[in-house]
């Protein structure tokens, strides 16, 4: 164990030679250290999923559940696994879906208020290449955040998401300001049941910015950034979900989500 300070993106941060992360291998090396511990600088939403009691019928705590009928096989529950993991299932009827959504719209992109969001999620396909999955931040997240029949994310929302659609192994990423959506960025290939860290750095450091630079990260590695026009954006929620193509039920397991946003 050897913990060292070093500089990344003009940001003094730390890494451990033995325990990691390696240089340039963590999304959080882009986030100022002070934002993690000084609440006057930034807000922090962090859930390691040691418990999750909210249901569709009885919302409780930080999350809402939006889903179709409850004929999925197996209980939605925190499962035995290192670090706290919550397992949720969408049933297998065609276009049936399930989403875990933060209960309030607590993040809004405005000039000078950067956001760092990362979630570690495993999407579990019922049949090979048959699932539709989504994770990210969006306003008014809810039913049909994933459009039916493998059509990807909703055609209008404010935010940015990763997604994977039935029949395609490619992970995609887009930003959206209402109906103005960026061309999808390819972020590698989806592997069923494999935990993956999905991160988005919404970078806007000046109050005169007109766009935020949204850089997607998969397992700490940056992919092509997209600009998101700030004007007109609404408050966002965190959302993760799955939708079935009718072949089998689709599932997701979430290990953690952490969201930091500059507060003032």
């Amino acid at each position: 164990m050897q913990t060292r300070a070093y500089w990344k993106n003009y940001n003094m941060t730390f890494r451990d030679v033995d325990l990691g992360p390696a240089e340039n291998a963590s999304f959080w090396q882009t986030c100022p250290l002070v934002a993690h511990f000084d609440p006057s600088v930034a807000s922090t939403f962090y859930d390691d999923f040691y418990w999750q009691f909210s249901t569709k019928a009885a919302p409780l705590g930080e999350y809402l559940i939006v889903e179709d009928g409850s004929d999925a096989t197996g209980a939605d529950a925190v499962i035995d696994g290192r670090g706290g993991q919550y397992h949720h299932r969408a049933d297998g009827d065609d276009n049936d879906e399930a989403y875990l959504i933060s209960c309030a719209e607590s993040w809004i992109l405005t000039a000078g208020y950067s956001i760092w969001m990362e979630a570690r999620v495993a999407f579990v396909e019922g049949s090979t290449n048959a699932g539709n999955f989504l994770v990210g931040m969006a306003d008014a997240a809810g039913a049909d955040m994933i459009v039916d029949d493998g059509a990807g994310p909703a055609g209008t929302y404010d935010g940015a998401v990763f997604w994977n659609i039935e029949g395609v192994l490619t992970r995609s990423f887009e930003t959206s300001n209402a109906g103005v959506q960026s061309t999808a960025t390819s972020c590698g290939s989806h592997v069923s049941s494999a935990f993956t860290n999905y991160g988005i750095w919404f970078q806007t450091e000046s109050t005169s910015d007109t766009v935020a630079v949204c850089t997607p990260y998969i397992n700490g590695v940056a992919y092509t950034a997209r600009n998101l026009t700030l004007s007109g954006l609404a408050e966002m929620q965190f959302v993760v979900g799955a939708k079935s193509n009718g072949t089998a039920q689709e599932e997701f397991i979430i290990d953690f989500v952490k969201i930091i946003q500059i507060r003032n």
Partner: protein
Amino acid sequence: MQTRAYWNNYNMTFRDETYGPSAGSSLWQTCPLVAHLDPSLASTFYDDFWSLPCTAIAATDGRWGLTEDAGKTGTDAMQDMRGGVWKLFCGGTNNEETYLHTIGESWILTAGHSLWFEARVAVVEASTNEANFWIGLTDVEAANQIADTNAGPIGTYFGVGFFKTGGALTTVGFETSNGTTQSTSTSQWTVVSSAFRNYGCWIKTESTSDTVAVCTPYVDGVAGTAHNITLSGLAEMEFVVGLKTGSTDAEDALLIDYVKIVQIRN
């Protein structure tokens, strides 16, 4: 973005050139970084209010309770705002009140156990200047923590906090109290209805032989005049944020963004 280490009060801490805080403008620059990270050194209570903390009927997340009159007409609710914000209403009849409090008395001031707390709160006045509020740590979680008729905090309790009395927006004060021995500074700060301010206090006692703690109030990261509080006889405290309606009979409310409390554990 340029995050740099620097020293403040003999404490190595960090600041970012873009996001702040600038040197000397955050309460947390006085708190050792290791106290945030190492639970064997310090306890940390932090709520960013991402979900409804409780109702008068049920403490929904186990950490908070609510003591209040029955007359409120507004609906306590999460707000669609950056950073997680909860809105707490108060009845609109003169002297009706509401207090959000932690469930347990989990903090006690004893020699050598420094404490830092900060809460970001806005008061939403229904009638200009009329609201009374209290933000701080006290052993008394009960009705009339704020005395009736704009009389400020109650006359006996163990704790430290900020308060505003009805009648003006310039009447935010700071008080320490050991039983009936109280040190009160009135009219130290001004608030603007619906505008957030950060109310913090560094309660400093670094030696086990201390007989007093030095309580320095911070508003928006800027230190005010410190009060000493005698440590002998103090009881355990809860964190309380409360509101009492003024004489104009209109329903006031509080917006609560976060509270963070760090205390040396051993």
